[in-house]
């Protein structure tokens, strides 16, 4: 498991919560493109914008395909960008399996659209500097993903760790 929430430092510059309804697959990408626009407007570093966009898209996709609906909170700090995803179920049975590239429980209708490659959570984890995934079967899932804005605190050279 990744380390817990980063120590609170830096000033909060922006905060906004977006709602993602269950099954809203046609709209997937709407939150991510909005987040991207906001980050660019705030002058966030392009590499950070790129990584946050990927994390947001995958999280948004998972909420739409798998859950009864959920929300995404974007927090932009002076030193980092955080995305917090939460939903109201059904939760993830096996947390190790979902982090394994290629593993997917996506239904056929989602696979036909090109989802369900089993890369969603691995993509999120790869692009985040800190990634915390908690889930309770029957209850829901919560994910916190942090991307540092200063280069020296980021992992790798942008591409993140490769499996």
């Amino acid at each position: 498991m990744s380390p817990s929430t980063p120590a609170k430092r830096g000033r909060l510059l922006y905060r906004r919560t977006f709602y993602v309804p269950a099954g809203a697959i046609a709209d997937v990408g709407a939150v991510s493109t909005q987040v991207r626009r906001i980050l660019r407007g705030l002058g966030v570093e392009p590499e950070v914008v790129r990584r946050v966009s990927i994390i947001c898209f995958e999280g948004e996709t998972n909420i739409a395909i798998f859950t009864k609906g959920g929300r995404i909170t974007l927090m932009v700090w002076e030193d980092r960008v955080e995305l917090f995803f939460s939903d109201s179920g059904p939760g993830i049975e096996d947390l190790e399996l979902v982090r394994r590239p290629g593993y997917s429980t996506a239904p056929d209708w989602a696979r036909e659209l090109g989802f369900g490659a089993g890369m969603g959570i691995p993509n999120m984890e790869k692009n985040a500097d800190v990634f915390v995934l908690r889930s309770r079967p029957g209850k829901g899932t919560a994910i916190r993903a942090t991307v540092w804005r200063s280069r020296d605190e980021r992992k790798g050279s942008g591409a993140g760790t490769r499996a």
Partner: protein
Amino acid sequence: MNAREVARALGLEAVAFPHPEAEVEGGFCSDLLSRAMAEASPGEAWITYQRHLNVVAVAKLKELSMVILARGPEPEPEVAARAEEEGVNLLRSGAGMFELAGRLYTLLSRGPRNR
């Protein structure tokens, strides 16, 4: 080589073409959106059989130079409208993915120096 030149060379039909001057820096083929999300690089042309709204979102987020829809039905009007709105170049072809990839590869391999 920019998107307009690629479109002309490959005989592509425009579905939405808001940025014909975009530089095409390479190509990428996949029908899996997460794979495109993970592996496509900014400036690349994405060749795919998928033709729904999410394709536009991926192309936008990844800052791709264009999306080439391989042989298949015309995309829904809202897909064209969204691409226009988001500034995503969306073109289609009667050729399959294999042929498009081969022709694009040849085209880009020539490079500006050897032309």
